[in-house]
């Protein structure tokens, strides 16, 4: 810094003064030295000052050269990769080298999302959306996208274990047959599968004393219980955003990860686009004690304490005195059924009850809020099981696909009570903490290798079909139950077909084939339920947080949820939507509390309440309610030999049993220790202005002017023409438009890109050096005051600039343009100067500092997309617009002679998006969807004044018209 030209420093100062109100991190807001150093380093991710002297260099070179010589002596014919192995008998449906698609479902908390599984040569390699599915409508979530890596996870349980030692199915059979008939308890996750439910009912008939419990750490079923109080019957609520003017979210979760995210986000975005086109924006008013994806998309945000939300839920539609409450009261004033009030799964039953009553009073039921019978089956809860265990009533406990030893609140004493059970069986994808406490552990089959069914959040019955034979000795939950009930245990397919044979009308084989083909049973959505309000509904006084104490909120981790995805490296390395932290969880502390107690990010805090305590590193969270901290679930795994072992703190240590998402009073202290949290929030910072534009509805357009075909790449085709250039085919111009209003920051695109493009996981230490490899990142910007900032999400892939600066920088032409306007990266030419990255104003280029893909477990290599090069060390890489998919479309079109029709070539990020925020296609095609989006008045180029003519452009985010909403 000291050598810097003073004039340059002044200029930079002026530039940063122009930044406007957007900021990425509190460090940036402060403008402190650490941030500025990072921003102004040309290669922040290069190793600092670990110089190699001449002698060491020569020594290393000598070793490499001698090894290179030896490598040259290999007989290439002995290389196993040089073998070609055909089938003995090729199945008629097998097409080596071609993609095969299976309609199936991915599961989240036992609920289905319809998906298409892509397999290559018999290996499932990618999850895509299923556009025909009535609930998920082509969208996916991060859990679904990442499930293909779970399938190949080498850490998965692979054998039957008896007291932790490998055993076999043959010795398990007699044990199961000899299980005592009384004192049998079954513990499962949420069950939506009709066939599994029938099997459990059958089991209850066979063992009349059987008690069935459901354990779901991320959902306390408060909405359903609230409905039981408000309407006299348990209900799930669906939302019809198209009928609504206003959404009022009382710490709602309509856009947050969970079983309802894909379907609700899709419908919300669709309704919002339609409403903006009508000129009246579907406004989202949100109050939240801790930021969520839903509150991040709020047009009007209020940060309030949990107790305030509970009070507010009972007071609405009458507002209070702050502007937010006044505005909400006004919006709800004419109860014409065009509003909706929503509350999140983590809110207590009393709030849900109040919200249900409020929706009834506002005339929303049956119009915007649609009650349906609960999708997940009802059973006893976990505390009832623990009580029975403590009383010694449980003789045998069968636990299927749950891990309560780890994820139940430790105050419940599950692990201790479990010791009193004489016979404990556990089935799971992993030999986890619960497996270690059991007599027997059974490896569970992954959905990608299973037959099954499950319902989506709207009741649609999705089918799960195997895409590969079971990798290990795993069995499915229905197969395990069949071991318990049937004299002749059945396989999953037989069980499933037998169940549906009696329930599908007409010719079963035809109907079944059709259902499998589309992946769901048509018209199986849950019908609306007519409801009447039950009496009651007092307003309880929520306990206030005493002075000197803090409010503790518990939330599912935004990426790992309750820990189900903890062993997935893609998820561990996925920056959390708001904190951008990877490989860790943090104690989220409000800026006010941080200042008051002198807490800075990374200080290890100790939280104590009711004699329990947990310690974790602090993160100062903009938008967190003043006297509150948030703990996230899913971390602090203790089981050895897992990827997730030893990462983060375990929030279950402090979590209460009743009202399990909130402790109103806890003490907070600094331990004096530090823990480095790794966050990507300042990585790849762009210098410029107008990064995120906001379009007020009805106001003058904020987009760029005249941004149409005349600015498309085209000049170079002529200059590069060869004598044989006959130019018989019209040139395409690929481009992408990303709608910032629809983007909810869910990260599904990022994981989808990682799966499609063989993007390496680099690990915590490498991310700390700024070396994460994601080709597509989602920048999260804050605007305004740190106490209650507005949040913006901006996905940033390669812009495929028409005048790409990176191409000028490369000394070996390893990055050049092709005739369809792609900025292509030629790995085999790249010599790793990184000049292109230095030249890139968008910071979308990623360099392989180490050989990240080498040494992966052989199973993990099976997941890789054979159409995409696995990059080696020393090579630059970046988003290719999924060039392999473009090539496939081009070859198909060339073979048939038909032009590539709009929507045939879809990028991985586009197919993953639940809100259809990403459009991709041929800009030269006047009828393409992407061309229409590019002509939207909201369309603008990121850093457009650099004149690099990006092919990827953005649509400005909407904001409601001024005045009352």
């Amino acid at each position, binding site marked *: 810094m000291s050598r810097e030209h003073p004039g340059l420093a002044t200029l930079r100062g002026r530039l940063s003064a122009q930044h406007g109100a957007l900021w990425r991190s509190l460090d940036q807001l402060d403008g402190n030295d650490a941030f500025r150093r990072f921003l102004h380093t040309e290669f922040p991710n290069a190793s600092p000052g670990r110089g190699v002297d001449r002698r060491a260099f020569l020594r290393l070179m000598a070793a490499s050269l001698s090894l290179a010589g030896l490598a040259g002596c290999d007989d290439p014919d002995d290389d196993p990769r040089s073998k070609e192995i*055909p089938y003995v008998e090729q199945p008629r449906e097998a097409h080596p080298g071609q993609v095969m698609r299976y309609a199936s479902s991915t599961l989240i908390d036992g609920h289905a999302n319809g998906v298409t599984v892509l397999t290559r040569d018999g290996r499932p390699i990618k999850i895509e959306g299923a556009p025909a599915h009535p609930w998920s409508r082509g969208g996916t979530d991060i859990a679904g996208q990442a499930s293909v890596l779970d399938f190949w996870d080498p850490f998965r349980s692979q054998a039957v274990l008896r007291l932790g030692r490998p055993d076999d199915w043959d010795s398990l059979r007699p044990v199961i047959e000899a299980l005592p008939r009384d004192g049998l308890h079954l513990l499962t996750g949420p069950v939506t599968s009709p066939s599994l439910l029938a099997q459990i009912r059958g089991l209850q008939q066979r063992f009349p004393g059987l008690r069935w419990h459901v354990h779901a750490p991320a959902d306390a079923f408060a909405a359903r219980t609230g409905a039981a109080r408000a309407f006299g019957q348990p209900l799930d609520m669906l939302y019809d955003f198209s009928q609504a003017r206003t959404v009022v979210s009382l710490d709602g979760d309509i856009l947050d990860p969970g079983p309802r995210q894909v379907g609700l986000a899709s419908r919300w975005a669709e309704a919002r686009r339609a409403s903006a086109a009508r000129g009246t924006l579907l406004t989202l008013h949100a109050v939240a004690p801790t930021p969520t994806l839903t509150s991040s998309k709020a047009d009007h945000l209020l940060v309030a304490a949990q107790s305030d939300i509970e009070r507010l839920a009972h007071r609405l539609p009458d507002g209070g005195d702050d502007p937010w409450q006044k505005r909400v009261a006004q919006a709800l004033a004419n109860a014409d059924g065009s509003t909706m009030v929503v509350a999140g799964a983590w809110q207590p039953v009393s709030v849900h009850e109040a919200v249900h009553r409020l929706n009834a009073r506002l005339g929303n039921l049956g119009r915007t809020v649609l009650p349906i019978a609960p999708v997940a089956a009802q059973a006893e809860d976990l505390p009832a099981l623990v009580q029975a265990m403590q009383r010694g009533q449980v003789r045998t406990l069968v636990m299927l696909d749950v891990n309560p030893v780890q994820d139940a609140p430790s105050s419940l004493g599950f692990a201790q009570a479990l010791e009193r059970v004489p016979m404990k069986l556990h089935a799971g994808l992993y030999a986890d903490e619960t497996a270690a406490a059991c007599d027997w552990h059974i490896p569970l089959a992954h959905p990608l290798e299973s037959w099954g069914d499950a319902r989506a959040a709207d009741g649609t019955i999705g089918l799960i079909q195997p895409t590969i034979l079971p990798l290990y000795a795993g069995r499915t939950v229905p197969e395990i139950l069949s071991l318990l009930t049937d004299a002749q245990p059945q396989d999953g397919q037989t069980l499933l077909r037998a169940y549906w044979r009696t329930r599908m009308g007409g010719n079963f084989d035809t109907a079944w084939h059709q259902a499998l083909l589309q992946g769901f049973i048509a018209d199986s959505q849950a019908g609306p339920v007519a409801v009447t309000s039950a009496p009651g509904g007092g307003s309880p006084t929520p306990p206030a947080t005493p002075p000197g104490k803090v409010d503790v909120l518990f939330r599912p981790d935004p990426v790992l949820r309750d820990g189900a995805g903890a062993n997935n490296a893609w998820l561990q390395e996925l920056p959390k939507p708001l904190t951008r932290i990877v490989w860790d969880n943090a104690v989220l502390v409000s800026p006010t509390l941080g200042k008051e107690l002198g807490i800075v990010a990374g200080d290890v805090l100790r939280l104590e309440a009711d004699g329990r305590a947990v310690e974790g590193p602090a993160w100062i969270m903009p938008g967190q309610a003043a006297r509150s901290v948030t703990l996230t679930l899913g971390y602090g795994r203790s089981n050895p030999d897992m990827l997730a072992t030893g990462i983060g703190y375990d929030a279950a240590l402090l979590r209460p049993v009743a009202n399990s998402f909130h402790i109103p009073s806890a003490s907070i202290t600094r331990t004096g220790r530090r823990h480095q949290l790794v966050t990507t929030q300042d990585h790849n910072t762009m210098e410029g202005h107008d990064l995120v534009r906001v379009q007020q509805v009805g106001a003058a357009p904020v987009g760029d002017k005249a941004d149409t075909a005349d600015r498309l790449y085209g000049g170079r085709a002529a200059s590069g*023409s060869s004598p*044989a250039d006959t130019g018989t085919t019209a040139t395409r111009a690929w481009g992408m438009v990303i709608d910032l209003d629809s983007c909810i920051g869910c990260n599904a695109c990022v994981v989808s890109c990682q799966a499609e493009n063989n993007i390496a996981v680099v690990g915590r230490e490498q991310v700390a050096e700024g070396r994460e490899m994601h080709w597509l990142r989602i920048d999260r910007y804050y605007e305004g005051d740190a106490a209650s900032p507005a949040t913006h999400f901006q996905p940033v892939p390669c812009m495929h600039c028409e005048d790409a600066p990176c191409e000028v920088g490369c000394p070996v032409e390893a990055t050049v343009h092709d*005739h369809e306007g792609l900025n292509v990266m*030629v790995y085999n030419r790249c010599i790793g100067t990184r000049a292109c990255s230095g030249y890139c104003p968008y910071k979308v280029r990623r360099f392989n500092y180490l050989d990240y893909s080498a040494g992966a477990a052989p199973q993990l290599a099976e997941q890789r997309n054979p159409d995409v090069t696995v990059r080696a060390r020393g090579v630059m890489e970046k988003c290719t617009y999924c060039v392999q998919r473009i090539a496939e479309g081009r*070859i198909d079109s*060339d073979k048939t002679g038909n032009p590539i029709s709009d929507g045939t070539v879809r990028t991985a990020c586009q197919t993953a998006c639940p809100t259809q925020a990403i459009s991709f296609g041929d800009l030269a095609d006047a009828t393409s969807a992407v061309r229409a989006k590019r002509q939207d008045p909201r369309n603008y180029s990121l850093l457009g004044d650099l004149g690099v003519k990006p092919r990827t452009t953005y649509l400005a985010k909407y904001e409601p018209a001024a005045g009352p909403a």
Partner: protein
Amino acid sequence: MLSLLLLVGASALTLELLQHSSYISRVGIAPEQPVPFSHKHHVGELGLDCRYCHTGVEASASAGLPPTHTCMTCHSQLWTGAAMLAPVRDSLAHDMPLAWVRVNRLPDYVYFNHSIHVAKGVGCSSCHGAIDRMQLTARAQNLSMQFCLDCHRNPAMRLRNPDQVWNTEWMPPADQAARGKALLAQYHIRSGAQLSDCSVCHR
């Protein structure tokens, strides 16, 4: 100084020659296979069509190798006891696939697609040589980037009529330049510049 230059020049020349020698390119070298399969016999003498065994060639990136079953359609009747065919019979009997040694192999960062080449009038023998005269199968071309680009930059000289694609004895006729130009239009083949885009082969 002169001797040093000569030395450097000589080593450069040696390296260059080595680079293009069959030791490196493996042109004309037939690796040992589990069964000494003869294309000369099956194609040249019996007249089997390429697609009888390489079924994926018109639909897929890879032409594919025949499953053991394809061999046994004939060899369950013919040469049933031949010692030479024991590995094929064993493969069927034990349900263990044959493991052939690859003859033509491209680097991992090259994505060649058979189906589009045969659809656009590039015949098998343009890359695989006179396969109908090969007793044992060997690589006919060095398959270097130069080899691919020679054709991609100027495809006209290799284009055939659709009915000639599978003809392993095809030779360019005297008026190939004119025919090729007509075929370029007939097949709607993009310009040489477009066909030499990096993204055509590298992903």
